[in-house]
């Protein structure tokens, strides 16, 4: 099985021990590096190959309320979510390598991007062009916009 990642949600409310306990029993996965255009249906189809999916919570831009490239997938059974990490993590959906990781369990509010501009933080400082995730990074877009305004 893929080595568990060392990432820990910094906004987790509770002790580190509690967080580790929840992660080790969780049936919920964080799924990242999705295209903004990937739908809940597609995710259901792919993850459904590993077991019965309980619910999917799409990650949304906190201002525009549109998908911003991540989601949570909750299974009924721990074993099914383990299979999803084994067999889906690192394969493609909409031509992008999907990344899966354990999540301590969805809490209302976590579906929103935590970046200043509303989406995920990783999309603020990117310096590459990613058509599936809104083009250039947000900071670059802002710079371009301000300089264009100045030129006018």
């Amino acid at each position: 099985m893929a080595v568990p990642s060392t990432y820990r949600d910094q906004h987790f409310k509770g002790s580190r021990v509690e967080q580790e306990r929840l992660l080790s029993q969780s049936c919920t996965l964080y799924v990242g590096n999705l295209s903004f255009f990937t739908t809940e249906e597609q995710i259901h189809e792919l993850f459904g190959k590993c077991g019965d999916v309980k619910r999917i919570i799409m990650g949304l831009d906190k201002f525009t309320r549109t998908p911003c490239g991540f989601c949570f997938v909750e299974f009924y059974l721990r074993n099914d979510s383990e299979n999803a990490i084994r067999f889906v993590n690192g394969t493609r959906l909409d031509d992008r390598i999907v990344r899966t990781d354990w999540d301590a369990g969805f809490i209302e509010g976590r579906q929103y991007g935590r970046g200043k501009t509303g989406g995920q933080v990783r999309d603020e400082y990117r310096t590459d062009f990613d058509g599936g995730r809104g083009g250039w990074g947000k900071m670059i877009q802002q710079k371009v916009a301000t300089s264009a305004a100045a030129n006018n």
Partner: protein
Amino acid sequence: MSRRKRDDGYEHGYRKRRRVVSEQAEIEDRLESLIIRVGDKTSSSLESNLEGLASVLEADLNTYKSKILRILSECPIQMPEKCTIYSTLVGLLNAKNYNFGGEFVEQIVRNLKEALREGQWESARLIVRFISDMVNCHIVSASSLLQLYDSFIDAAMEQGVPQVRRDWYMYALLTALPWVGRELFEKKENDLERIMAAMEGYLRRRNTAHVAALRVWNCDTPHPQEEYLECLWAQVRKLRTDEWQERHIYRPYLAFDSILSEALQHNLPVILPPPHTASTQYPLPWVVFRMFDYTDCPEAGPLLPGTHSVERYLIEEHLHQIITRHHNERKELATQLLAFPQRNKIPLEYMIVEVLFSELFQMPSPRYLEIAYGCTLIELCKLQPSTMPQVLAQATELLYERIDTMNATCFDRFVSWFSYHLSNFQFRWSWDDWQNCLSLEKDHPKAKFVSEVFGKCLRLSYHKRVTEMVPECYSPLLPPKPEPYFKYQIEGGNGFPGAAQVQTLTELLRKKPTPEEVLELVQQLPNPLKDDDGDMEPSHNPLAIEVFVQTLLHLGSKSFTHTFAGLAKYHSVFKNICENEEAQICMLRQVYELWQHHPQFLGVVVDKMLKTQIVECCAVANWIFSRDMALEFTRSYIWEVLHLTIRKMNKHVVRLEKEVADARAKLRAAPSDSESSDEDPSREGGEKRRRTSSNKEATKDDGEQPTEEMVERMEERLEAAQSDQKNLFLIVFQRFIMILSEHVVRCDTDGKDFNTFWYQWTVGRLQQVFMAHHEQVEKYSQTLETLLFTHDLDGNILDTFRQFQALRS
């Protein structure tokens, strides 16, 4: 002072003991790791490693004997590919220390007996093979091995027990013979011939009615699809004509012949197979999957061993063992498969692909998740980009060419794998090569395959992507845009009955009303079923259902989550207007009408409705076979829905069964109060106990100790569930029989051939129900035989039932 001294002494002794314990544990760990790793790649030769390890172990035998015995007897079972390495190691130890050899034999015999008793058939088989190989290393005498074989032959000849049991004893012997055949041929040729003759007799008299149900293809061209025992028998017979010489097994003991031939041998004790009991489960039979022969592989490369050469079996088994060991780590699995020891002597990519597909297509069900095979094939393509994708494309091409005779279950798995694989490789495929499917009937398996693949690709991507991935000429097979079909919104939609109320309800729902408010509006709709006299109250109101279901689902059509929210919030409305089966079928019709262009959505909604008990399993089954769904009858998604419905029911029953079994076990474990009060005739005592028992029941509610009454209640629930399950299977099979019989009769009167594509698909789907749920269907086999699958039935329909019965006969 003296006290301190004593303390010191104590402390000192304690520490020393602890140090000794940890030192011992350390040495044991080291020995374990040495034994486990022997034979893995190192710079020095295997022979010198084995020699060295034997000396190390010999020196430690006195101190760590039980540990060494345990590890040495488990390794050849855990790592069957290293069987000969461990037999050599044990042989060397036996040569040095005869007593240890004897104890090892005792240990391994104990393990075999336990595995047989516990029904761990695969372990037992590997132990038999290892014991056989121990004859090659002069640990066990050939004559005592033959005695073991004879008792297995006796077990295979036993009358009045299931064939699957007898088969296993035959199989265990046959799979050991490639290891020890040569040795027995040289030393005990007559006995070996006697055993071969007994096997031949057994195989000739065997019933093979199950084969048809287990085959991937119902056709033997170009490659015969043989039953596993028959195929293995042919391979072993071929081995005999080659004077028991095979070329795959690496035998390190040959290098130690001079040492080993000096060693004294042990006799195996008599090992009697434990008798059959009604609850013993045996492995199901299977059919050996063949898709390649040597002409499929490149001419310049190594030769693919023939179907009946024992090397083909040995290599395949080895590959299966690698899959067993690494099935949870796909990258490691792909690496290990490609690092196969004799990779230069065989067309490895072809054999890997054949073995992986054989597991994916395994009937009744694959060992592991289908996606586990899919992602392993992806890894293999990434790891070996120069050859693997081509071999896989060639395999896909062959599977497509032979799809006319593929069974419906494997057809579905093939569609599912191929679309998944494409989605990982930018949906690139040489579609031009398959244009011949466009001129075929739409129910022809090739046309069906292509359109089902498009449908599945669509689920993993989006409509534009799928239409752009194929040449334009494929458009007749492309799925429509997956959108809700809301008839009230299209032109002229106002004319539908209830259109005005749909409008009102839509506006109401936007204001997030309570379920009661919605119900009130819905119930005001006139009931078209009500006749003018109005004396008979109709079972349901179809117009109310239509308006409510279509409007609610349409408003939630944005995503699954939106729909689920609607179903949850207005659950009580559903329960109220869809009380009985007719109403539920009416509701399903509405779901279908709205989602007819989006099979995935339809399936997910039905699944949710089953989970939330808005709809019953039987209603779904009856709906699928209803006239309304006739047009969709040969499409795979309909069957996906049927299977998820049956699975839902099965899961429910299995859960209740487990609950009852657990509670019963708990009740037995703790001395029950009612029993003790029975023992106590005195009234007072009895009363007192009754009081304590009611106290207990109070604590028990949080899952502590169940009482007799609670278990009885659970059993009642289970019985009710089992009766529902039986009813569901009866409905499904009866509908199959009706629809198939009608078809046959109709063709007969019209003077047409009944054997159409439609007929083949439907029989295939019937077979699929038997296979996919065989463990549950089996419980009702008797009922099905007396009620449904009676002798007057059409022979073709009856055959599917007989094949299913033969699975465990």
